[in-house]
């Protein structure tokens, strides 16, 4: 599994970090973690001013919030242009063509087969989810930017929305009581219910939990590996390791592009699948 490989290389990288320069892996986290400043080292750093609290909640926008807004803005502008181009001509050209392929891929290859009948109501949400994660992942690969999808708070929030989408889809289709009853498979012996009911209730929450952790871990792992690769140069303290480090970092970077696509795809298809399972309980 590539993830375990990543973890292994991470371990070795981190070990070397610890052995060569003590306990100084903070710079890696500094690049990955959320902060209250937009770093453009070595040029300048923008400090974000403190916002007033809202009902005791500190809502000061952080670095990740800014890149989330940037993603949202990009998405709105891009798809506004695409939507407008269809008013001129139904024949797609240029950027419209690319976006059309992706939109149709999400609708016809992800949502339609996994969600099944009545998929139309969830298409706007799932399309937004896919492109939000995809653009967030890809934006994070640009130097000086930050990957907001590698923040557990963001992925957890998206997973909570998935959780609500799954429950709302199931309840709307089947009615509240029959949906809750349908959570436990039919035709199992009654003594099994003692086990099955907690398991099924647990599985309601493990699904979105897995979604959140998967996206978070995948997005963070690649970045840590890239930074560790480049960090090796400084920790070992010789230029001879640089070509190998840079080549490896580039390789991981390219892999990250793939991972960015795959994670957006997986988050969307699993959410769609879970909604489909909740909507069509008989299967």
């Amino acid at each position, binding site marked *: 599994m590539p993830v375990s490989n990543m973890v292994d290389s*991470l*371990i070795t990288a*981190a*070990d070397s970090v*610890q052995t060569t320069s003590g*306990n100084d*892996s*903070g710079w*890696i*986290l*500094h690049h*990955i*973690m*959320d902060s209250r400043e937009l770093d453009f080292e070595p040029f300048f750093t923008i400090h974000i001013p403190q916002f007033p609290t*809202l009902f005791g*909640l*500190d*809502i*000061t*926008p*952080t670095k*990740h*919030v800014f890149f*989330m*807004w940037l993603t*949202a803005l990009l*998405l*709105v502008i891009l*798809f*506004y242009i*695409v*939507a407008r181009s*269809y*008013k001129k001509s*139904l024949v797609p050209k240029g950027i419209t063509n690319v*976006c*059309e392929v992706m*939109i*149709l891929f999400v*609708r016809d290859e992800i949502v339609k087969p996994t969600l099944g009948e009545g998929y139309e109501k969830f*298409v*706007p*949400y799932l*399309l*937004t989810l896919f*492109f*939000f994660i995809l653009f967030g992942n890809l934006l994070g690969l640009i130097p000086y930017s930050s990957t*907001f999808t590698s*923040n*557990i*708070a*963001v992925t*957890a*929030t*998206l997973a*909570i*929305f998935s959780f609500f989408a799954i429950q709302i889809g199931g309840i709307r289709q089947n009615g509240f009581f029959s949906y809750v009853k349908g959570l436990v498979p039919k035709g199992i012996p009654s003594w099994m219910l003692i086990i099955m009911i907690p398991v099924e209730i647990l599985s309601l929450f493990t699904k979105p939990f897995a979604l959140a952790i998967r996206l978070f871990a995948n997005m*963070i792992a690649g970045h*840590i590996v890239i930074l560790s690769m480049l960090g090796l140069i400084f920790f070992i303290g010789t230029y001879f390791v640089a070509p190998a480090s840079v080549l490896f970092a580039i390789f991981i970077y390219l892999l990250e592009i793939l991972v960015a696509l795959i994670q957006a795809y997986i988050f969307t298809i699993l959410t769609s699948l879970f909604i489909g399972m909740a909507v069509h309980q008989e299967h």
Partner: protein
Amino acid sequence: MLTNLIIGVLASGDGGGTLLDVNPGLIFWTAITFIILVLVLKRVAWKPILTALDNRAKGIEDSLNRAEQAKEEAQKILEENQATLSKAEEESKKIIDQSRIYADNLKEQMLKESKDQQQKIIEDASAEIERKKNAAFEELKNQIADISIIAAEKIMKENIDADKNKKIVEKYLTEISKN
């Protein structure tokens, strides 16, 4: 070693934050941003784009159907034309046949009529000839009478000899009968 690493990576960091720290403000902003993004994109992008794509798909299907329909119609018209053509051919054949029969009849009739007329003409001519003959005969008779009278006169004038007279009369008579 692994736990060491996880603790090292997750728990260290400047300012004492860890990777698993959940910032409630970020949750707040993510929720707000995502909800607004869904609503805005739904209105601005997904609805018009998907409608346009569906319309395009429907348009293509429609035009394919229409092409199929037009083909069928053309086939039908072709068949109709062929049927009309063969019918027209048949009709023209019939008309030609009819006209041929008519022409034959007409020919026969005309032939018959002309024959009749010929016959009549011949008959008329015969009658005329007969009449002319009779008239000529009548005239001849009159002339014979006149000639007889003239001959008689001459005989009278030259009445010298009975024998001679007789000879003359006979001579005339033979002349006449010769005629």
